C-alpha cells in the first residue's frame, strides 16, 4: 500500500535519511547543530530522538576535522552523512572535500570506496548577505570526484537522498533554504509536494521535464526551477510555450534531455542562482554551442544568473541580482523576438 502526503522538502529529506538509517546500521550523521536542533534548516529534524546521539552526532565547529573524519570512516566501511551548515563555509574545509573525499577513489585506482553524503544549504533571497547566500554548485561540479545533487522539491529530494545514501561514491546534496518549507522562511510552495511514505530511489543523471513546450527550453535547477515553472505559467497566458527542465543533478549531467529539448524548441534560456561566469549557465550554453551541428537555434542562448557580484544584503539589491520570475518572463519574451544571424539569413 503506497501512501503519499504533502511534505516539505526538509521533511522529505529527514524522512529519507531516517528510512535509510533504519535499513542500514552503517549510516550515521555528523554536523553542527544536527542533533537536538535538528539541523538549522531542518534536514535532520527528529533524527536524534529516533536514533540517539551515537548515530546523530553534533560536532565542534571544526569542519576540516569532521568532514575529513567522514572520509576516514567511509574508507573503513561506514556510510556517513555529514553536514556543512551553509555551502558558503566550504572554504574552511575544501581541502578535505576536494583533495581527499573527491579524489581518493580515483587516486587509488577505484579501490577506495567512499560512500559519503555531504549535505549543505544553499541559496539566498532572505537577506543573509555575501557569506550566507551562495549556491556554488558550479564550483563543486567543476571539480571531478563528487556527484552533485540539487533537488527542487520534496518528492525528488527524498528519492535523491535515498540514492545518495545508497551510492558508493561521495555525493554532495545541496538543498536550497528557500524551498525547504521552513516555518520561519518564505518559500516557493511548489517545492512542497506529494511524497510516498515508502522508500524510493531516484536515479542520478536524469533530468526531469516538468512541463513540455515548443517555443523555448528553460533549463534550471533547485529553487530556480520553481521560479521557472511560475514564469512558464505566466508565459502560457501569452501563448508562449516553454519547456521547463529540472537538471536535478549536475554530476552526472543529463546532456541528452537538454539537447533533445533544444533541438525541438530552437531556443534556450538557462536560469541559475549561482554566479554567471564560469559556472552552470556557461556549461549548459556551451553544450548547445558544441552541438550546433545537430541543434538549430532560432535565437541566441540566454543566461540568467547572479551577475558576477557577491550577494548584497539590502533587499532591493539582492532581489536585483537574483533572477526573479519577472526576469525569466522578460528573458523569454526577449528570446522570442531575437534571431540568430544564421536564422536571419535563412
Amino acid at each position, binding site marked *: 500500500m503506497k501512501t503519499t502526503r504533502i511534505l516539505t522538502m526538509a521533511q522529505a529529506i529527514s524522512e529519507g535519511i531516517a528510512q535509510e538509517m533504519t535499513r542500514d546500521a552503517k549510516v550515521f550523521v555528523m554536523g*553542527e*547543530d544536527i*542533533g*537536538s*536542533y535538528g539541523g*538549522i534548516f531542518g534536514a535532520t529534524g527528529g533524527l536524534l530522538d529516533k536514533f540517539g546521539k551515537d548515530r546523530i552526532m*553534533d*560536532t*565542534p*565547529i*571544526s569542519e*576540516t576535522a569532521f568532514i575529513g573524519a567522514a572520509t576516514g570512516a567511509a574508507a573503513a566501511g561506514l556510510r556517513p552523512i555529514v553536514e556543512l551548515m551553509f555551502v558558503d*563555509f566550504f*572554504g*574552511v574545509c575544501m581541502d578535505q572535500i576536494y583533495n581527499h573525499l573527491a579524489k581518493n577513489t580515483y587516486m587509488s585506482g577505484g579501490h577506495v570506496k567512499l560512500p559519503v553524503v555531504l549535505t549543505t544549504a544553499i541559496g539566498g*533571497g*532572505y*537577506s*543573509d*548577505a*555575501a*557569506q*550566507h547566500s551562495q549556491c556554488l554548485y558550479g564550483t563543486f561540479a567543476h571539480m571531478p570526484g563528487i556527484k552533485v545533487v540539487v533537488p527542487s522539491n520534496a518528492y525528488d529530494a527524498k528519492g535523491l537522498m535515498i540514492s545518495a545514501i545508497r551510492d558508493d561514491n561521495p555525493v554532495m546534496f545541496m538543498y536550497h533554504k528557500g524551498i525547504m518549507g521552513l*516555518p*520561519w*522562511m*518564505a*518559500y516557493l510552495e511548489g517545492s512542497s509536494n506529494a511524497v510516498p511514505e515508502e522508500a524510493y530511489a531516484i536515479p542520478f543523471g536524469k533530468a526531469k521535464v516538468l512541463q513540455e513546450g515548443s517555443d523555448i527550453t528553460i533549463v534550471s535547477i533547485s529553487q530556480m526551477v520553481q521560479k521557472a515553472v511560475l514564469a512558464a505559467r505566466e508565459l502560457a497566458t501569452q501563448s508562449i510555450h516553454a519547456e521547463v527542465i529540472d537538471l536535478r543533478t549536475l554530476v552526472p549531467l543529463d546532456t541528452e534531455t537538454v539537447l533533445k529539448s533544444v533541438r525541438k524548441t530552437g531556443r534556450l534560456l538557462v536560469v541559475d542562482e549561482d554566479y*554567471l*561566469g564560469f559556472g552552470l549557465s556557461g556549461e549548459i550554453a556551451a553544450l548547445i554551442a558544441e552541438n550546433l551541428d545537430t541543434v538549430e537555434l532560432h535565437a541566441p542562448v*540566454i*543566461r*540568467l544568473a547572479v*551577475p*558576477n*557580484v*557577491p550577494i*548584497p*544584503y*539590502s*533587499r*532591493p*539589491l*539582492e*532581489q*536585483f*541580482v537574483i*533572477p526573479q520570475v519577472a*526576469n525569466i518572463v*522578460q*528573458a523569454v519574451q*526577449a528570446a522570442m523576438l531575437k534571431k540568430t544571424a544564421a536564422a536571419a539569413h535563412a
Partner: protein
Amino acid sequence: MQAGNEKLLWMYEKMVEIRYYEETLAAVYMEGKLPPNIQKGLAFDIGAGPVPGEMHLAAGQEPVAVGICAHLSDDDTVVGTHRPHHFAIAKGVPLDAMTAEIFGKVTGLGKGKGGHMHLFDNAHKFSCSGIVGASMPIACGAALAAKKLGTNWLAVAFFGEGAANQGSFHESMNLAAMWKLPVIFVCEDNQWAISVPKSKATSIEWVADRAASYGMPGIRVPENDTLQVYEAVAPAIARARRGQGPSLIEIKTDRYFGHFQGDAETYRAKGEVARLRQNDPIPKFAQLLKDKNFMTMQDESDIIFKTHQWVDRAFAFARQSGYPSAQDALKDVFVSDHSNARALT
C-alpha cells in the same frame, strides 16, 4: 591597571548603549515578520520586515566588548564576529551609519551591501565577519601592519568559544606568537555555539589554557564582570604595545537572547536565561560605581537618557534613509570597477 573615573563612566555608558541598542533591535527585527503579514502557514519570516536576514544579538556580553575596548584608541584595530554590535559600539563605530547598514540603507557603512554581520568602518578600524574563526587571521594582518609601520598600535581579534575549535585559531595564534605580533585574542565564552554547549565541543575547560601551546600568556576571566575584564587584559595590552607579542584571554560571559532572533532555544534548560540575567553585569557595574561614588544617580540617569537618545536617533536615521538603487548592486566589486559584473538581461 586601575581605571580612572572617566574610563569607568565611559564603560558604563557604552554598556548601557549596547544593551539598549540590542533590545531596540530585537523589537524592530520582529516588525513585519509575524502573521498575518507573512506567507500563510509560516510562524515567522526571516526575510521580511525592515531588518531582514539573520540577527545575532550580544545582550549580556557587554563586559567583553567594553572591558577590552576601553584600552584601545582609534589607531587600534578590532575584528569582530557574526555577533558584532557590542564590539562595534565599544570601538566607536558611528551608530547612524551602522544602523543604516543593518537596515540595508544607502547611508549605511557599506551602502547596504554588507548587513549586520559585515560592518566595516575604516575610521575606527573596525570590521567583522560571519565566518566563525575568521577574525583571527585578519587581526594578525592588522598587527603585522602596525609593526611594519613602526607604531605601537595593536589589533584585537574577538571570537566565540565555539570558534576556538576552528583551525584558524591555531594557525593565527602560532603565527602571532612566532612573529611577536601585537594581537590580543579574546575568546567570549558564552558557553554556547548555537545549540552545542562548550562541554560537548571543547576538550578542555579553559580555552585560555591553549595559550601555552604557543608560548604566549593565557588569561582567564572567570566572571562576566566589566572591571575584571578591564583589569585582567591590561597586562596583555601593555605587553603587545611593548612589542612583546600576543596574548590570549578568555572571558566567561552570558548570551541573553537566542543564537539568532527567532531561535526557539529548545536546547537550553528552562529558566537558564532568567538565572543568567540575575547576574546582569550592567546593574552590577552601576551599583559599584555608585557605591564608590564614581557615579551619582543624576549621572546614571543622564547616561541612560543620552545613550537611549543616541540609539533612538540612529534607528530613526536608518528608517528615514533611502535604499540603494538596485543597479548599485553591480558596483563596488572592486574599488575601481573592472569586474565581470553585468546586469541581468
